[in-house]
Structure formats: structure tokens, C-alpha cells
């Protein structure tokens, strides 16, 4: 479904990605793991069209999306929930959701998606007319994911969805991602909570300093001593 081939990207003079190649199949839940500055968010930004890689290619459903604008990529069915949520604080919850469905012109589809969103996130129905900026952190995260789902994306990208949330809310977010995966949504997940991530993903890539340094199923990654030592131990919850 999605293929990144030898992607190089930089912010000004700083090289952020140095030949990243990953692939995701239809219906898969794949994670990008790594320390801060490894290039995980940059990879998502490159796919979403926010950052233009200077080398390599990105194929989505067989055709290149490299150099396409963020709006063109969104129209192809790729949704990104960025780190920090980026909900529209001055817009109501309903307006945020309505804008999420911008690429879907059919009213029946909008109503159906809205109904499904309210089943997934009942709190949003209660807060429909409230400005997004007045929601709690957990509610804002739910709104950000709900807004992305309103477009019925073929690929959902989640950047650090559990960041800054209370432990109980983190559980809810991971349960939600697992549920979305069960309903056959293709998901690319960036997370620092390695243990929880490996519980729900099909595969994961390990990134470091703009490079992919390993990949495999959760079982393979858990038993890979070197990788565990370098990348996971320091980030595993409960381990200092």
C-alpha cells in the first residue's frame, strides 16, 4: 500500500532522513520506534507532504506521491494526526469534525462517519458545540483522531498519540488503536511507549539518526538483544 524508497530529507542544513525505506501493506498496523531525533516524525511529515524529500520516492497504492501538496495527499486517503494534536482551538468540536470530512462531499457518508465517531468517542458528542481549545488533553487527542477518521482514510498516521496523557488515557488510546486495526484501518504509528506499542502492532521499524536500523515482528524485536539494549531499554516504561 505504502512504500518509501531511500528517502532523504533535511530541515535547512540539518539532515533528518538518510535513506529511509519502509513499506506497509493494506490493513497492517506498523510502528516506527526510536529515540527523539531519530527521524520518525520527519518520516510522517514526508509522507504527508509537509516536508519535501530531496531524494528517494514515496509510492502510495502504486503511484508516486512525492512532491504532492499536503491537500493532494489528503485527498488520496492519507490522514496524519500530528504530535501535539493540532486541533483547531477556536473551532467547535463539530466544526473540527466537519473539516475532517472535507474530502468527503457526500452528506450520507458524513452522517454515517459522525455516528461511528460518536460510538468510538462518546465524550465528543457531549462536547459538540464546545471550542476545541477548551477540551482536556485526552479529549483533544480523541478529537484529533476522530477528525482524521472523518475522512475515512485508507492510511492513518498517528504521531505520538499517547504523549502527555495520563496513564488511564494512554490505555484508552492504545485500546482505540487496536480496535481501529481490528476494523482493518491501515495504520502507521510513531510511539515512544515501546512496550505498549509492541503489544498491538504487526511489525515495527527501528530508527536512529535518520536511518532504519532494524525491523521485524514484536516477537523478533523483543528477542533481539542488541536492538533491545540500544533502542528499547532506555525507553521502556518503568525502566530508568
Amino acid at each position, binding site marked *: 500500500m505504502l512504500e518509501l524508497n531511500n528517502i532523504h530529507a533535511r530541515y535547512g542544513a540539518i539532515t533528518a532522513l538518510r535513506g529511509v525505506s519502509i513499506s506497509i501493506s493494506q490493513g497492517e498496523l506498523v510502528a516506527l520506534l526510536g529515540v527523539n531525533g531519530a527521524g520518525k516524525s520527519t518520516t510522517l511529515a514526508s509522507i*504527508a*507532504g*509537509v516536508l519535501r524529500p530531496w531524494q528517494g520516492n514515496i509510492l502510495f497504492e502504486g503511484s508516486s506521491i512525492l512532491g504532492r*501538496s*499536503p*491537500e493532494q*495527499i*489528503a*485527498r488520496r486517503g492519507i*490522514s*496524519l494526526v*500530528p504530535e501535539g494534536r*493540532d486541533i*483547531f*482551538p*477556536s*473551532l467547535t468540536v463539530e*466544526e473540527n469534525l*466537519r*473539516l*475532517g470530512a*472535507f*474530502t468527503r462531499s457526500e452528506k450520507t457518508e458524513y452522517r454515517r462517519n459522525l455516528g461511528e465517531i460518536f460510538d468510538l468517542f462518546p465524550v465528543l458528542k457531549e462536547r459538540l458545540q464546545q*471550542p*476545541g*481549545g*477548551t*477540551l*482536556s*488533553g485526552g*479529549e*483533544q487527542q480523541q478529537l484529533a483522531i476522530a*477528525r482524521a477518521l472523518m*475522512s475515512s482514510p485508507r492510511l492513518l498516521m498517528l504521531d505520538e498519540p499517547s504523549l502527555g496523557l495520563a496513564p488511564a488515557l494512554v490505555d484508552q488510546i492504545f485500546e482505540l488503536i487496536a480496535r481501529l486495526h481490528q476494523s482493518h484501518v491501515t495504520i502507521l504509528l510513531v510511539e515512544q511507549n515501546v512496550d505498549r506499542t509492541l503489544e498491538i502492532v504487526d511489525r515495527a521499524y527501528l530508527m536512529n539518526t535518520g536511518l532504519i536500523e532494524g525491523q521485524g515482528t514484536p516477537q523478533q524485536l523483543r528477542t533481539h538483544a542488541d536492538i533491545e539494549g540500544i533502542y528499547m531499554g532506555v525507553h521502556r516504561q518503568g525502566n530508568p
Partner: protein
Amino acid sequence: MINLEFIINMISLGSLYAMLALGLVIIYGILRLVNFAYGELIMIGGYTMFLLAGFTPLPWLVVAVLAVAAAMFTSLFTELVAFRPVREKSLTAMLITSFAVSTLLQNSALLIISPRARAVTLPQIFQTSVMIAGTSVPWRNILTIVTSIVMLTLLTLLLRRTVLGIALRAAADNFTMTRMLGVPANTVISAAFAISGIMAGIVSIFWIARSASVTPTIGAPPLLVAFVATVIGGMRSLTGAVVGGFVYAIIISLLGVLLPPELLEFREAFMFAFVIIILLFRPEGLVSSKTSVERVG
């Protein structure tokens, strides 16, 4: 003296300044660009009225509509040929472009028409007054207030009830995120420039009605008013633009009656002193742009 006439004049001035500020802030909200060519849109509206009212038999209402249309299309045209090519470069490039567009339009008017003021033929209603509660009130002021109420209502409906309007507000919050939801950048920016042009066109009618003439440099004073009003109200808030416009009008009107005659020529200096005081206490302007406080719990 503060009486009914003064109050209606002040509200009329506030209405005009609010429309002025809205036209400037709608572009700033999305592109973070202070469009210095905004004043020249008012000039375009003025010259359209001068040409059509003076040299064609068109009814004045049609002339006014065409003046607004001319300002709107000029605004859209400048976006297309001047701002769009440099939009991805840098904010500085856009700012310099806006100066260039401003100079180009001004010099075009100087060369093609004349550096001297040209009289604009206005309908009788702009020169007459009506008696309200024993006070003579110019129709021009009443028309300004009614027009601004209509325009603010229409703009509110557009921004609240339509997807394009919601996208415009979202783009003012976070343009990149808006684009990531599939909203085309060009559509949003063109819509903002169109609204800005319409506002400038409408303002041109009432601004020029005060002097019944147009010059190539007529756009400079309203641009300054719009800029100061948006700074007072908040550069990123449409509500702030309206508030800023009215606050500007209230302060400048009150200074006009409260200052002793010998200090009246320093009215602008006093005005800016007030602006500095406002900014010392509210550096982001009177109206905050975002409901950004995250609720805890």
C-alpha cells in the same frame, strides 16, 4: 461636544474602520502577511467610481457594485500573479512583494490618470442629512452603519455556516493542518483575498464619499488606520479587527472633542500614545486569537 450626532458619527467611523481592519486581518490571519497593497484596492475602487460615474450613464448603484468588483478582482489578481509565486519562499519575500504591488498600482494611477485629485460624482444622498431626535445626521453615516451591519452579518454567516468559512477560520488557527485535511491552500487564500478586496471596495465608497475625490495616494491613510486597528484588536482575530476598528474610532473621535484646539493638530500623536498604552497591557491586542487554554481534568 458629545451629543447624538457625535455618537452616530463615532459609530459610523467605527463601522468603517471595522470593515477596513477586517479586510487586512483576514489575509494576515492565514498568511501572516500585512498586505501593504490593501490601501491601493481602495484607490482602485475610487478610480472605478470616478470613471464609471463620470463617463458612463450607468446608475450609481451599478457603479458602486462595479467599484467593489474592481477592488475584489484586483485583490484576486495580485494574489495570483504577485503573491502566489513567492508564497512558498519566505514571509519577507511576500512583504516586499506587497510593497512592490502597492507602488506599482499607485504609479499606474499616477501615469494613466493623473497625480492630481479627481472629483468623484456621488449621488445626492451622500450630501444630504436626516433629522433624528432633533439632530441632523448625514445619510452617509447611516448608510455606513447599515452597510457594515449587513457586511458583518454576511461575513459571520459565511465563516460560521459554510465549509469554506470554517476552513478560513481553521487556516487562521493552523494553515498547515488545514491543508493536511485536504483543504486546498489556493482556494482558502483566494477566498481571503476576495473578501479583503470586497471589504476594500465597500470602504472605498464611504471613504471617498467624505472628500468626493480620489488621488493615487488615497490608500495610505486607510491602510494606516486598518493596521493600527488590527494591532489594537489583535492581529489574528476577526473579532479583534472589529473591536480594534471601533476602539480606534472612539479614541480618535473623543480626542477630537476633548483636546484643546491648540493641541488638535497632535491628535494622531495622542492616538498612538493610547495605542502604546493598550499594547503595554495587552501586547497581543484586546482580543486573544485562540481558545488555547487546555482544560485540566
